[in-house]
């Protein structure tokens, strides 16, 4: 596999980088350090190699779906996801390096393959569901990719250790997606009191992290912290995604938490415009959004601190910094 070579290069790079030295070189501007690290770990190269890896997998393992996957992969939404999986995988490899989790290269390579297949599978189903642009046949492609993703996780970690974990996280994912779709055009099924649930949309990815944690000998408390920390982090991403996509989601019958109450004020049939969305997001709504997101950052931060997980803590702080850069109080 093409990616296998890249992973070992990544490990070598991690060994060599002195992040504190970089931090000083860039006059204590952490965002520039992050940019530099991304360059050092060859983020662009990772993205290119990922695309080539997907080509290889499709050609060798998904021949029957080659045509439809080729059409789907030309869509902007899929290209974007393929690129972000590459960055996510770099973080995962980095995390394993930091935690000294030893896995044979072949297994690590397969785990990354499973992330790739799973993300693509979930995204295809999501796109079918939300955009209505594709035929129902794509559901079977998406389901098959998800099945392959789970098969790989179970093969790599063993059924005894991973079957329950895979099932646990799939259930969380299915519950929130079910609630969201059941409430289409009705209202938001999530509440400001329990925003963590938003993070369950990314739950299938957690099965890999938890299986790796188990392999690393993490205690039950550490595994719980890992799960809660990741869920809170994923909930932040979901909140940000929801506020960015508010108009499109509402036009599609999805009232996200940040827009909860919108359909009561503007029933179905209302032409949803940017102006309407911005009017709805008044000062009170924006404050609630900020405070909820900030609280999710705190949950994530506390869990990773308790676990002494320096890398995930750094990711949380960097993301928090990036978030703050987009908030103005004038």
């Amino acid at each position: 596999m093409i990616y296998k070579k890249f992973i070992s290069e990544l490990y070598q790079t991690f060994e060599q980088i002195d992040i504190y030295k970089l931090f000083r070189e860039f006059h204590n501007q952490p965002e520039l350090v992050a940019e530099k690290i991304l360059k050092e770990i060859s983020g662009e190269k990772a993205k290119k190699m990922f695309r080539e890896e997907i080509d290889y997998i499709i050609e060798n393992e998904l021949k029957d779906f080659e045509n439809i996957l080729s059409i789907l992969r030309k869509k902007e939404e899929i290209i974007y996801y393929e690129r972000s999986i590459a960055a996510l995988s770099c973080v995962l490899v980095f995390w394993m390096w930091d935690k000294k989790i030893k896995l044979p290269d072949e297994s690590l390579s397969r785990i990354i393959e499973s992330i790739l297949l799973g993300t693509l599978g979930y995204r295809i189903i999501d796109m079918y569901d939300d955009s209505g642009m594709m035929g129902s046949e794509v559901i079977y492609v998406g389901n098959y990719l998800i099945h392959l993703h789970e098969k790989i996780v179970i093969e790599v970690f063993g059924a005894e250790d991973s079957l329950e974990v895979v099932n646990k996280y799939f259930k969380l994912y299915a519950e929130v997606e079910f609630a969201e779709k059941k409430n289409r055009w009705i209202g938001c099924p999530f509440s400001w009191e329990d925003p963590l649930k938003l993070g369950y949309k990314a739950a299938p990815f957690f099965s890999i992290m938890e299986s790796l944690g188990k392999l690393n000998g993490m205690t039950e408390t550490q595994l719980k912290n890992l799960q809660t920390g990741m869920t809170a982090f994923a909930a932040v991403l979901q909140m940000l995604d929801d506020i960015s996509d508010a108009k499109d989601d509402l036009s599609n019958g999805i009232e996200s938490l940040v827009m909860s109450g919108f359909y009561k004020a503007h029933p179905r049939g209302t032409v949803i415009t940017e102006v309407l969305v911005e009017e709805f997001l008044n000062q009170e709504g924006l404050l609630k959004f900020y405070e909820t997101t900030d609280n999710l950052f705190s949950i994530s931060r506390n869990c990773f601190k308790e676990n002494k997980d320096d890398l995930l803590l750094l990711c949380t702080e960097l993301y928090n910094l990036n978030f703050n850069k987009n908030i103005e109080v004038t």
Partner: protein
Amino acid sequence: MKGLKPVTLAISKKNKSFKKEFDKKKDKEKIKINFKTGPWYGWWGF
């Protein structure tokens, strides 16, 4: 990779001071969120 902790600490300080400033101003001044600067998913901290 060396130096994760001091860098994390430095960023954490920046975040804390932002929050402090935000809390001071939030009730008196207008909040603006540049939520169109996404896509957010592409940026995982690294």
